[in-house]
């Protein structure tokens, strides 16, 4: 099979597509089903890890806070203790040493809690605490110094007392306030922890539903597409699958395999078509050879008589004879050329075709089979029949096959009618080849399109005619229907989609009607 094509002849679209489609598939980044599953589960693990880390951080913070709260409580207690001794001191003049001890303890606690405090408190709050503690300490230091000396001025004593009371109460207030705030915050965090498992569960549920849905969608959609493709292939449409996603996965490989299979099928089909064509040519050749005898006989008779009577003929008579020679040679040439055109092995080319032309060519090719069968044949082509798109040779092969079948079926004096007209299906045309021949028994009817099924004697029928014809018609997006009964003869209907119709609109406003992509309904 020739794969290169002549210049100017449009390449078979399928052959070109196959290469670019394959490249398109291969160029896509690979993202397999396994990778997607792994990614799906990893995202679960990631989600869980994030939640666990979050909970862990929150717990650590809570621990800090509890420790700090404890420190604050103890600090508050020390301060309150100090203040109690302060009261005693001012009432009874005792316990100065105790005050000092407790204050030192409070200071120590504050210093120890400072790293934790820095996490919980703002700098100003911390500064305020420190300032009051410092104030209280210095006042106490002055009191200690003053109390040691016997002649302490009462004015100074009362000033110290005021500073102590002021700073002391502030310290207690701040510490209590702090503890209160901290406790509230800890309670909030605890409440959050109580809700956390519920939220986690809900999120997890939503997340798994989404992931499962996405994964399922990614499996189901390409599966559906592949299923449609197999149906399309069964219908004889071998257009390759094109990538529909940005990545490549196992389904892409399956699509590539299907494309390869379709290429192989198309190739097989071509081989079958070609081999049946050869057998059809054999049949036609016998008829053509016979048909050639007529012009040859005319030429022989005319040439012989011209030679015999050359001297006695008038110029006009000689001229007439020579003209007969010329027309008979042209006739012979036409007969041979028809067959040669049909026999020529050529690339599949789609072009706009007039069905009438194709039918005339087919009946012309079978002219002698028609004559020999002694059948009457009538060709009727509806006016204004839309053109079709297709391969001229392949379609004339279809009609020759159907016509020869019909001629084989009729007896001498039978009738074969070929009618071309609009089809029942929208935007389709049909050719009905009907005969009043032997018809097909019901139990045979389902088998006639099978390859190699024939009821004809060996050497006469290969049984490929109808299967090859159906293959060709389906490749054109059409179909063949058959109706037959032994008493009524048979009628084969070839339905083909009409080409784009640039309607010859008298107003000139009508845009071309595109032929719909829809194919005629499959055979029942």
């Amino acid at each position, binding site marked *: 099979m020739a794969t290169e094509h002549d210049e100017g002849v449009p390449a078979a679209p399928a052959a070109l597509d196959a290469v670019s489609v394959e490249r398109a598939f291969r160029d896509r980044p690979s993202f397999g089903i396994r990778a997607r599953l792994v990614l799906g589960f990893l995202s679960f693990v990631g989600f869980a890890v994030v939640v666990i880390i979050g909970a862990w951080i929150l717990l650590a913070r809570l621990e800090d806070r509890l420790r700090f709260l404890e420190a604050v409580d103890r600090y508050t207690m020390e301060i309150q203790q100090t203040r109690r001794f302060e009261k005693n001191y001012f009432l009874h003049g005792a316990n100065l040493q105790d005050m000092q001890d407790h204050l030192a303890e409070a200071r120590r606690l504050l210093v120890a809690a400072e790293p934790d405090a820095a996490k919980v408190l703002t700098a100003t709050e911390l500064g305020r605490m420190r300032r009051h503690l410092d104030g209280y300490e210095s006042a106490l230091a002055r009191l200690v110094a003053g109390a040691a000396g016997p002649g302490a001025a009462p004015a100074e004593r009362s000033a110290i007392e005021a500073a102590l009371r002021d700073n002391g109460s502030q310290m207690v207030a701040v510490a209590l306030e702090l503890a209160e705030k901290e406790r509230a915050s800890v309670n909030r965090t605890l409440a959050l922890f109580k809700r956390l498992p519920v939220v986690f569960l809900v999120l997890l549920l939503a997340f798994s539903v989404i992931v499962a849905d996405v994964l399922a969608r990614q499996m189901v959609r390409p599966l559906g597409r592949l299923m449609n493709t197999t149906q399309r292939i069964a219908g004889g449409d071998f257009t390759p699958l094109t990538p529909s996603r940005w990545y490549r996965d196992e389904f892409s490989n399956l699509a590539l395999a299907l494309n390869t299979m379709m290429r192989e099928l198309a190739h097989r089909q071509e081989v079958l078509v070609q081999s049946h064509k050869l057998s059809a040519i054999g049949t036609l050749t*016998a*008829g053509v*050879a*016979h048909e050639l*005898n*007529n012009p*040859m*006989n*005319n*030429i*022989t*008779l*005319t040439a*012989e*008589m011209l030679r*015999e*009577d050359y001297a006695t003929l008038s110029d006009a008579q000689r001229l007439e004879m020579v003209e*007969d020679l010329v027309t*008979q040679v042209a006739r012979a040439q036409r007969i041979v050329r028809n067959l040669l055109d049909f026999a020529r092995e050529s690339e599949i080319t789609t072009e706009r075709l007039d069905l009438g032309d194709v039918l005339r060519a087919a009946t012309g090719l079978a002219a*002698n089979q028609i*004559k*020999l069968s*002694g059948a009457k044949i009538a060709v009727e082509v509806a006016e204004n029949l839309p053109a079709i798109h297709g391969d001229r040779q392949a379609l004339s092969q279809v009609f020759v096959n159907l016509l020869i079948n019909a001629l084989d079926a009729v007896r001498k004096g039978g009738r074969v009618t070929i009618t071309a007209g609009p089809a029942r299906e929208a935007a389709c045309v049909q050719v009905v080849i009907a005969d009043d021949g032997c018809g097909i028994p019901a139990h045979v009817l389902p088998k006639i399109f099978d390859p190699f099924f024939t009821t004809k004697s060996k050497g006469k029928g290969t049984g490929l005619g109808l299967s090859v014809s159906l293959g060709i018609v389906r490749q054109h997006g059409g179909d063949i229907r058959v109706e037959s009964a032994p008493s009524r003869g048979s009628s084969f209907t070839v339905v083909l989609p009409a080409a784009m119709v640039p309607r010859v609109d008298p107003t000139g406003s009508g845009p071309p009607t595109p032929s719909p992509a829809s194919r005629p309904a499959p055979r029942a």
Partner: protein
Amino acid sequence: MERRLQVLVLDDEPIVGKRLQPALAKVGCDVEVFDAPRPALERLAATRFDIVVTDIRMDDIDGIEVLEKVLERWPDTRVIMITGYATVELAREAMAKGAFDFIAKPFKPQELRDVIAKAAEALGFAGIAHAVVGESS
């Protein structure tokens, strides 16, 4: 004057009659040509011809039918069939049905004249045979 051989030529290719007419007239035949079987049969129903030359394969009525009709009406008329490549079977059938001889397309005028001469001889027209031989020599 000696009776001339009456010949009817029937072939749906008009050129055949056109060329055979002078070719046979030259050897002393009265030739009538037809390129459709129906008018030829009408003529044959009315008139007797010594020899009928007919093509076997024709659209309407084929040569076998012509042969049958002629022999039915004029049993001693000699019928010569013209056959084509794929009609040898038919030629055999014709011979069985009483045709005098057959000649395959494509043929030369002289070949037909020879067959006609044979037929004429069989009919007792010695003159034709001589004329034919004289012409060809």
